[in-house]
């Protein structure tokens, strides 16, 4: 028996050459698949960790695309809301000019009535602007959720849930707080309208200045959460110093029971007659106003203070008082309306600047999402894609190896002892 260490079976030789050729051909075909698909990892089993990484990167990329699409919608909504507030400011400016013109002493009742009707038209326009909706029919100023037309419900209130949605790191809110833009709150803004209900005599232009909120937090609220209506009845008496006058006034509230800075009746500081009066009233906590006009001893005037619940309410009051016919009521109303409308404009501006900040934030978010997206794509490519140069060079190597295997097979099989035995 020959020594098997140096022996090789012919059939086995062919089998093993065939095996090698087939396996080379298979790896050549696999490399070709890699080259044509451009991927190093075609199936998960090629490199499971890289395949999972590529899959996760792809998931995150599609998520960022979704978030960007949502951000575009949100940005549109906020931009529309911001321009709506701009329009509202424009209408308010127009109303302001009209109110100033109504203070012209040369106007008679019918002039004032026509001013009042113009104001009414602008007021309707303002309400329409405030109720503007986006392309989907959702109000732009719906805050945390509102009726289809949030301004105003039957009680003159904002028909929705006040408040502002916060954005997140990948989104901005898509509605602004309409309540903060248009509505007044007693303990935050302290907007009151003072009207003259009776002035005796009418020729002394007895009235008041605009009501200021000296300390809105001090303004008393009824148990129902609203501010009190106040009535102040003033009568001018002799002052402490000879030749001066003082205003003696008592304050009542509706509903009764509002706290006051002291007890009725109050007496003001002395006033020297002959100059236009500006007598401070200090009885109501948190509010301040001055009695104006040219009072004489014995004059009386009754003022009614009503809280204003919104810009619309302020404008409605102005329209009513300017159009009411009495010149002194109109003069009083102009003063009140101008001051209160300015407070309203402050609120509009503050919400509008918040909208501008949101748009800036949207730009920043968009930028950072783009960067992330690029980074994730790079991760995915690094995990999954074929380095073309490496791939082509591997392919060439395999090709050369395969050719060598084929050639050597062809040559070896020609060699046989039988060829030399004749």
């Amino acid at each position, binding site marked *: 028996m020959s020594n098997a260490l140096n022996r090789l*079976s012919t059939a086995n030789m062919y089998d093993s050459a065939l095996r090698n050729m087939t396996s080379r051909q298979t790896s050549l075909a696999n490399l070709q698949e890699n080259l044509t698909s451009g991927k190093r990892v075609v*199936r*998960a089993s090629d490199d499971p960790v890289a395949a999972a990484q590529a899959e996760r990167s792809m998931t995150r990329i599609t*998520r960022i695309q979704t978030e960007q699409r949502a951000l575009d*919608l949100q940005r549109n909504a906020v931009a529309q809301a911001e321009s709506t507030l701009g329009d509202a400011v424009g209408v308010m400016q127009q109303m302001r000019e009209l109110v100033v013109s109504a203070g012209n002493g040369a106007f008679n009742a019918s002039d004032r009535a026509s001013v009042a009707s113009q104001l009414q038209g602008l007021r309707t326009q303002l309400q329409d602007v405030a109720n503007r909706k986006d392309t989907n029919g959702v109000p732009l100023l719906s805050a945390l959720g509102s009726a289809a037309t949030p301004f105003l419900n039957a009680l003159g209130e904002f028909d929705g*849930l*006040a408040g502002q949605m916060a954005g997140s790191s990948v989104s901005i809110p898509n509605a602004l707080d309409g309540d903060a833009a248009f509505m007044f709150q007693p303990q935050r803004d302290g907007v009151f309208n003072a009207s003259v209900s009776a002035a005796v005599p009418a020729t002394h232009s007895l009235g008041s200045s605009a009501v200021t909120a000296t300390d809105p937090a001090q303004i008393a609220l009824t148990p129902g959460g609203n501010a009190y209506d106040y009535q102040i009845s003033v009568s001018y008496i002799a002052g402490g110093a000879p030749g001066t006058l003082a205003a003696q006034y008592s304050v009542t509230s509706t509903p009764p029971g509002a706290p006051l800075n002291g007890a009725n009746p109050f007496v003001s500081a002395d006033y020297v007659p002959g100059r236009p009066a500006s007598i401070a009233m200090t009885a109501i906590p948190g509010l301040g106003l001055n009695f104006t006009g040219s009072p004489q001893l014995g004059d009386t005037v009754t003022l009614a203070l009503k809280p204003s619940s919104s810009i619309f309410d302020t404008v409605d009051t102005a329209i009513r008082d300017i159009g009411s016919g009495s010149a002194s009521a109109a003069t009083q109303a102009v003063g009140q309306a101008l001051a209160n409308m300015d407070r309203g404009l402050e609120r509009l501006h503050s919400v509008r600047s918040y909208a501008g900040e949101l748009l800036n934030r949207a730009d920043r978010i968009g930028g950072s999402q783009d960067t992330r997206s690029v980074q994730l794509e790079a991760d995915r490519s690094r995990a999954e894609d074929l380095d073309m140069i490496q791939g082509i060079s591997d392919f060439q190597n395999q090709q050369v190896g395969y050719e060598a295997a084929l050639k050597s097979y062809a040559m070896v099989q020609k060699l*046989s002892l039988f060829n030399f035995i004749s």
Partner: protein
Amino acid sequence: MSLLNVGSRALLANQVALQTAGNNIANVNTQGYSRQSVVLQTVPGQFTGGGYIGKGVDVATILRNQSELLTRQASAAASVDASDSARVERLRQLQDVFSGGASGLGAAINDMMNAFSDVVNSPTDLTARNIVLTRIDETAKRMVGASDRLDEIAATVTEQLKGDIKAINLLAQNIAGVNDQIARAKGNGQPANDLLDQRDQLIRNLNQHIQTTQVAADDGTVSVFVAGSQPLVLGNQAASLSIDDPQDFGAASGQKRLYFQQPGSSTKAELGESTLGGGSVAGLLRFQNSDLQEGYQLLNRMATAISLNLNQQNQLGLTLDGSMGQALLSDVVPVQPQPAITNTSAGSLALSISDPNKLPASSYVVVFTGGTTGTITAQPNGQAQAFANMADLQTFFSDRGLQLTPGGPFNANDQFFVNPLKNAAGKMQALQFSPGQLAAANPVNAAMGASNAGSLQLASLKASGEPAPLTLPPAAGVVLSFTGGTPATFTLTGNTGAPFDASTTPPTPLAGPPYTFTSGQAISIDGWEIKLGGTPKTGDSVTVGNATDPQYGDWYKRNTGNADAMMALRDTPMFDGATLSDGFAGAMAQIGTRTQSAQFAAELSSSFAANLERDRTAVSGVNLDEEAARLIQYQQAYQASAKMVQIAQSVFDTLIQTMGR
């Protein structure tokens, strides 16, 4: 005279040698042929006064060149190779079901979840809602499709196993027949080379299907044993194998086992999988019992977690007509644990799903060693974990999101097979198709106090059902009243239960009242969860109300908080800590790793088998050059012997001529 004898003997011997060489050349490519070489021996010499005179050459025997050791080693290695490549082939098919990329199942799931974004940003757009429901339907169909493909693979494996078993049984009978022939031929004194080759080839073929060990008996037969000790062929008797469900748990376990049946007996013995060794039957059984089961488990867990989470969230929200939502996908009813046939008690275990985010991707076998003690083993390859009382057993399963209710006393050796999510993917079905049925609105709404002076903003509000079921606020709402400071605090009115910090798992109750307020913290009250940002001042308030209360009219129709909550499910850990969006990548990697390591194993065993085969054929294979050389050698010897005969004849002629007259 004797020269003639020597010559004719030599001629005959060389003729036989030539024929043997010729036989080798003819059979160079015959499978399983061992090369034969002629063994010549000299005829004992005749004693004469001048010494022992040789009497020529004789053919002693035709030797079959083969090494028993190498033959067995080569067979065994080829058997392991067959087992590994059968498994790899099937794993490649399994891997295709879990393929990734933009057209994979993972991308479909993510597209479905991302579609909620359009609903969130366009509350009144019915098209966006339609798209979500369509995507849910598609995902369900794709899950069913994936599950069907797994079923197809299982059916293919079963068919292939049937074919292999038929082949095994046939081969066994053939081996038994050859054994019989060899035993009869043994009495003739010379080894029956061709029959031996045939038997070896049959055994080699049998090893491709299932690994065997061989034991030679004195009468020349070889007994073939499978699974270590079961005699498939004993002498001239062949037993048979078959594939069937396991005896303990039956078809419910999804596994298959190999059974051995003695000839003439009707009882079948179950063969344990670890005893099988190699062979394509062993590889396929391994694939069927562990790899395919893992595929099923991963798919079923994904389907269950997605279905239950989407359903739960939709049922917490409001549809467009103001009613609470319904289930979006068909409910997953867990399959109850299967008692083994050998159980002696009537005890049973009942299971329900308590937390769909903790579900395991494996099945379990619970074995009782006493009334309340035993072990739990994860299938297929887990370690046994002991439990000392029923509470431990229940804790084990509740840690995996399953609530176990034991029923009845248990005896020692009772076994239960726990596979609650079986076929969940195959039954997944979308139930809602009308866009109004997508419950995108929150059942609660929040309003900031209109006179708030601080900077509170609403970051998110959603119904979570955790830790308590959802209780809707009363008409006046649940009011959070804040007090500024460092830290800011708040108190509650109108709530039914205490508030919890929802960012921990499980949620921890907040200390108070008054409760500390942290900006951005998720506060869970009465089954809904609110997140506020910013800094409150004293007197600020937030009111959470019931969205369907008449005071709010139809405001909920423009609210999409619940759709937002469904989008947040993307980041909920559901699959052993991986989130919903990453769950498929994990499953893909798991199957890919199995396939890759099976591929490496198959390459290794293939080259091992090739090397051993080369070693075997180095002894028993035919080398044409060698045979050619031998032909020349014996031809020369034949010519020389013929010359010898001619010389003997001429010697005889000379003798006759000289002696004749």
